[in-house]
């Protein structure tokens, strides 16, 4: 018996990944053209020619960035969360739980990492069978019993199985590129502001405008991505986990325990935060609706409530 909606989610995620892979370069080229168009007065050149000249440089730079991120993302994420490999000898209990769930789903076993942190949290990452991984904090391994931990692992395995992780990694890479561009734009803006007075005030005005446009677009896109990669996937992963383990109450208990202390100190970036089973960076002002609107995770009470309906 398959959980209704999982197959659909897999197809949707695959489609969205491809869409992102196509839409992003297109968007970047559009911005490049806009840039060339605004700078044509300054360089006394035809915008088309300027655009075509800079095309290889832009595409090359983005391509290299993407390749580095694509092949290095697991190392980056491991650095950002401070996780290390968990061996079978070292922790047979956890290893067996992961392995048995994978056998029952007929999938290749992902790598298992451990984050040395007493808080309770976990995440999955990776883009293909070779790089899929499940990371668990020391706290979650020690403080949950076998059934609860099995539920958490099944939740992460479901994320891998229905390709949530791949879509998320792709989106994180793209948002990262835009964030970098915005950063560069702001830096150059400050540089112009503080540096020697430019004779061509019209040119620097254009650069300021473009910097603002790039930043706005980058931010807008990152918001769209966070909505596009819907928060529904957490509910689906919970349902998938309940389906795998047949113990929704165990996962509900686990979520209750996790919600008490999900803070992972090592996690700085919000991009990495969206990978976790529960937000590892709980905000100081919880009531703010702003936070709710841009939250990477649905409220945990709601998830527990839904899991309890499974029984």
């Amino acid at each position, binding site marked *: 018996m398959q959980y209704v909606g999982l197959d659909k989610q897999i197809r949707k995620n695959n489609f969205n990944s491809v869409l992102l892979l196509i839409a992003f370069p297109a968007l970047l080229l559009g911005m490049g053209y806009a840039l060339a168009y605004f700078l044509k007065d300054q360089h006394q050149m035809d915008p088309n020619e300027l655009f075509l000249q800079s095309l290889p440089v832009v595409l090359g730079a983005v391509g290299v960035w993407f390749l580095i991120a694509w092949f290095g993302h697991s190392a980056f994420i491991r650095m950002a969360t401070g996780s290390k490999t968990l061996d079978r000898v070292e922790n047979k*209990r956890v290893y*067996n*739980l992961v392995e048995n*769930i994978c056998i*029952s789903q*007929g999938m290749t076993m992902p790598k298992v990492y451990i984050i040395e942190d007493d808080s309770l949290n976990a995440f999955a990452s990776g883009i293909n069978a070779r790089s899929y991984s499940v990371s668990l904090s020391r706290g979650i391994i020690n403080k949950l019993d076998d059934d609860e931990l*099995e539920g958490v692992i099944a939740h992460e395995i479901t994320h891998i199985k229905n390709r949530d992780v791949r879509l998320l990694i792709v989106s994180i890479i793209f948002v990262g590129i835009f964030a970098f561009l915005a950063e560069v734009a702001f830096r150059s803006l400050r540089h112009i502001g503080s540096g020697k007075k430019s004779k061509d005030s019209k040119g620097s005005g254009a650069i300021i405008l473009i910097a603002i446009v790039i930043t706005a677009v980058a931010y807008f896109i990152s918001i769209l991505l966070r909505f596009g990669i819907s928060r529904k996937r957490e509910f689906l992963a919970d349902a998938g986990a309940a389906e795998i383990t*047949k*113990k929704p109450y165990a996962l509900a208990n686990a979520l209750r325990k996790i919600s008490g202390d999900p803070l992972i100190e090592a996690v700085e970036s919000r991009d990495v935060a969206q990978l976790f089973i529960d937000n590892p960076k709980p905000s100081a002002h919880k009531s703010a609706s702003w936070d709710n609107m841009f939250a990477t995770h649905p409220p945990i009470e709601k998830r527990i409530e839904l899991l309890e309906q499974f029984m």
Partner: protein
Amino acid sequence: MPVLIVVGVLVLLVFWVISLYNGLVRLRNRRENAFADIDVQLRQRHDLVPQLLETVKGYASHEKELLLRVTEARTAAMAATTIDGKIAAEQQLSSALAGLKVQVEAYPDLKANQNFLQLQEELSDIENKLAAARRFFNAATTEYNNSVEAFPGNLIARNFGFKREVMFDLGEDTRKKMDEPPKIQF
């Protein structure tokens, strides 16, 4: 023009039949692949049984009948070649091992033996994995059986020799236990 339409419909029909046939082949192969996972665990269990029996013999040598039953079941299981044959033989071995597990409760010395404890832990680990592999195999089998028996797959299945396949159950008494997800004991 009407000829073209008829030809078009026929071509579509042929493609439809081909895709149904291929779907059945895919599902049958997946079931066989799933059995390969089970086979890995079964082989490990076969390797473990002699060591277990050797240890038990040292403490409970007069349980000859029981030990013999396990040995025979193991030999039969190793000799089986087809999937169906293996399933039947492994059910015998599982029930023989379950019997052994109950019987050794009467030997406190044996239960305190480090070697025995380790072997038993390994066996329970293998059996947990076996249970997991069996869940996947049974899910694949159900999907295949559904396609073979439901319309319109059944029309193709009948003509090309696809038939309903057996599930991997452990007999009536253990079925209830095995339907539950695996439990890890330490």
